[in-house]
């Protein structure tokens, strides 16, 4: 495991499994909603317009 940041508290470290499960669930949800098909058109890194292109 990588070392937590020096200012990460013991309580925060205890949160890691919950955060991991939450993020995995969100990623799985997006992959289910936006099926992974090679060749999907995408837009550019040079734009971040909230609500449209940002995940």
């Amino acid at each position, binding site marked *: *495991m*990588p070392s*937590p*940041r020096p200012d*990460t508290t013991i309580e*925060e*470290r205890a*949160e*890691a499994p919950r*955060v*991991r499960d*939450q*993020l*995995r669930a*969100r*990623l*799985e949800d*997006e*992959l289910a909603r*936006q*099926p*992974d*098909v*090679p*060749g*999907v*058109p*995408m*837009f*550019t*890194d*040079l*734009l*971040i*317009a*909230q*609500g*449209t*292109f*940002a*995940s």
Partner: protein
Amino acid sequence: MRSESGLNYIVKVASRCNLNCSYCYVYNQGDTSWRGRPSLMSRETFTAMLGRIRRHCVRSGQETVALAFHGGEPTLVGPARFAWMCAAAREELGDVAEVILAIQTNGTRLDHEWVSVLREHGVQIGVSLDGPQEINDSARVDHKGQGSYAAVVRGIALLREEGMPFGILSVVRPGADPLLIHRHFLELGSTSISYLLPADTHDTIGGLRSEFGPTPCADFLIPIFDDWWFNSSLDVSIREFWNLGLVIMGGSSRLEMIGNPPLHFVCVETDGSMQGLDKLRACEDGMTGMELNVHDADFAEIAQASPFHAAVMDGLPLPSGCQACPERETCAGGHLSNRYSSANGFDNPSIWCLDLLALFAHVRTRLGVTHEETERRRSALRQAGAPPVTLQVS
């Protein structure tokens, strides 16, 4: 790219900028092509471009089309011409596709009139900023060398007053305090943040490496990842981390930075010329040129007239030096511009290879996903065989 591939468009409505950021890939790296272009896109050129976009939407059958106003600094066109452009785009294209409008601005010229225009025309907003004043102003300066921070945060304050959501686009600052920067962005009220890796190449990276060590970008981004993980809400979208997660979970990247995904967008310059992947300007003078112009050519002609850019849009082959890498399908060589050297072209691993490997290792460990699990998930997702989507719209 096939001639019927759906496309989105980066519309360079201004080829000049009121800022002169030291690292800018448009003005201060390899490319000088902007010098010969009109400062602003004319109404005639914009109208010609819309006609070509319409024809391409009909040809491709795409259900959505995105126009991103970019530059230079796109607000240099002024709010009146910008409002006309937005209205013209919706009128010309609205019956063939859902029209998505967006702007990437340095934010320094935003005032009440601009905010009103952006709201009226439903334009999604991205603001470029690199952090608190002392960090931002060390590189993001005007043509007199004056920092831009104060003007940018005035613009952001107006957006917040009006309840307009915005994303912040920043460039990783090797050696800077990453948490100071990240927490500043959160304080400014953005819930959508991107940290771009600097647009250097193998020809230009030497000085940065010698000053900041072998993994300056990972050293910057990993503390932000842990802050996001432990201290922030996951509701704050950090685009690079989200896409790292997607590819580790077996999906495809929606970012140029990793995964070498197909790039189905085209730049249109102020003179109407079609241009390829914008960041390739950092590699060689004129590399983005396609020899096509909206005044006399369709976008479908890119596939035949510009094989290099058509190949770039499909994703160039993996660098030979990446073939044995365990992240060859997830990272896939990183961003094309970061692969470039004048000696080998794009057949190099990214200059940020060690940074990307460190990032992947860190995110994998946090997520608890091995390379083998990524492979299993990728196979399962692709076997599902769901129909393709044309654009993320939330």
